[in-house]
């Protein structure tokens, strides 16, 4: 076990968690943007028709 295990564990957790969440959010966030713009577009068209 490396010295000062608490800070070692939290540093490793940061690197692993941050790398994972970046890839995950990059994929899911792109879908969120697509859906958000689609909903806004639908609302805009609906309001233009009314």
């Amino acid at each position, binding site marked *: 076990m490396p010295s000062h295990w608490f800070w070692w564990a939290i540093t490793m957790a*940061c690197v692993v968690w941050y790398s994972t969440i970046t890839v995950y959010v*990059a994929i*899911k966030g792109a879908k969120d*943007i697509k859906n*958000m713009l689609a909903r*806004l577009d639908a609302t805009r068209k609906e309001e233009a028709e009314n």
Partner: protein
Amino acid sequence: MTNFNWLLDGSIVGLYLLVTMVAGLMVRKYVGKVEHFLVAGREMDVYLGIASLAATEFGIVTCMYTAQNGYEKGFAGATPGILMAIAMAAVGLTGFVIKPLRDSGVMTIPELLEQRFGQRIRWAAGVVIVLGGLLNMGVFLRTGGQFLVLVAGLDVRYLEIMMTALLVGVAVYTILGGMLSVLVTDFLQFIVMSAGLILVTILILLNVGWERLVTTVETSYGAGGFNPFVNPTMGWQYVLFNLMLNTAAVLTWQTTIARVLAAKDTRTGRRVYTGTAFFFVCRFLIPGIWGIAALATLGPVANTLEAMPTYLSTAVPAGLMGILIAAMLAADMSTDSSYMLTWCSVIYNDILAPFRKKPWSERKGLFWNRTIIAIIGVFLLVYGLWYPLKGDLWTYLGVTGTIYLASISVLLIACCYWRKANNWGAGASIVVSALIPITYLVMEQVPSTAALAKSIGPYYSGIATYILSGVAMLVGSLLKPQSQVEGRPA
């Protein structure tokens, strides 16, 4: 001498800037209403919210100060990040304050405060929020410029021109696309920023090594470099003050709250908080490790703020240098755009509210929002970049932040959970939370009281601000005659 290569690294930075600008400008066609402009039509989902919140809350100024914390305090310097992560996870899991805030359907915090405390308190809260926020943000540009100049080895004479060009670019897409542009560009900036932060950290861990980082901290700071409670510059008062400060920031900092208000529903807002919580540990620890690596490599330096960028300028190889600079530009641009938009939202929604006797048309509302952002941009240029700020920057940031955070957090908690809270208490709380930090700053400057101010210290003064702000709310509300309480308009 720096490893920055104009052809390779310059191309990476140029490509990043081009893609961001195009993405920011492309979504402007979806902005038809003020609600689209300020809260993205409340259509934001969880993962976009996490990316946006993380990108907004990490600017170059954050990286500089957290690295300085690592350099000066060792691993213990990451304590505020751990406290903020705990506060954010707790608020996200319980929905404390953010649930009633999002359920109310308001666009800003003062709008909710009006429902309990009346129009005057809404206006006063708006002024306090904008003053605290803009004065805080006023120092971002120059600090960001310092980092870029040092890392890229640029002539310091170009700092103002470079940061002016950057701000103009950010202002253009924020003015045209509002929150929609901010969210889309934040998403891209989160990816670029995260890639840079992770790669540089792995490089440092491989090159400098864990044992050398730990030995450096042990030699320089002893046990205090690992435990804030035994560090002579920190102690329990530092931990308690930072717990109060970070909890208040999680509950009321307008750029953070803006993500809750833009979320498509309350559950999404809470999930954004829990999903982003651990990022705040990374936000302090990753640049903190960069600062410790600078200490291990450079040894003692005159200006501890500049230690980390000076170290990175030679430690990061060409190619990765371009990613690092693009990452830091991304961090700064996402922070600037969100800050400009959120302070604009308070100015438009709350400070200008008394001037809107009749509801404005959407076209007029959008025009004024865009004009306000342009004015904020000009203020930032004049105040933060071209006007040389004097004095200690950290104290300045702490004081401006506490003036706002102490009172607004007390007002918001009382508004949501204390039935007897009223405008007397709210007014007293605002006055007290402004008076204590300002008095402390004045005492520091006046020779006859400087010694007393030093013996009190910024942490006790900060703790007192939060406690007495709460006491003022309690006493003020209870002192108001019952007849007036019953007759209040809210």
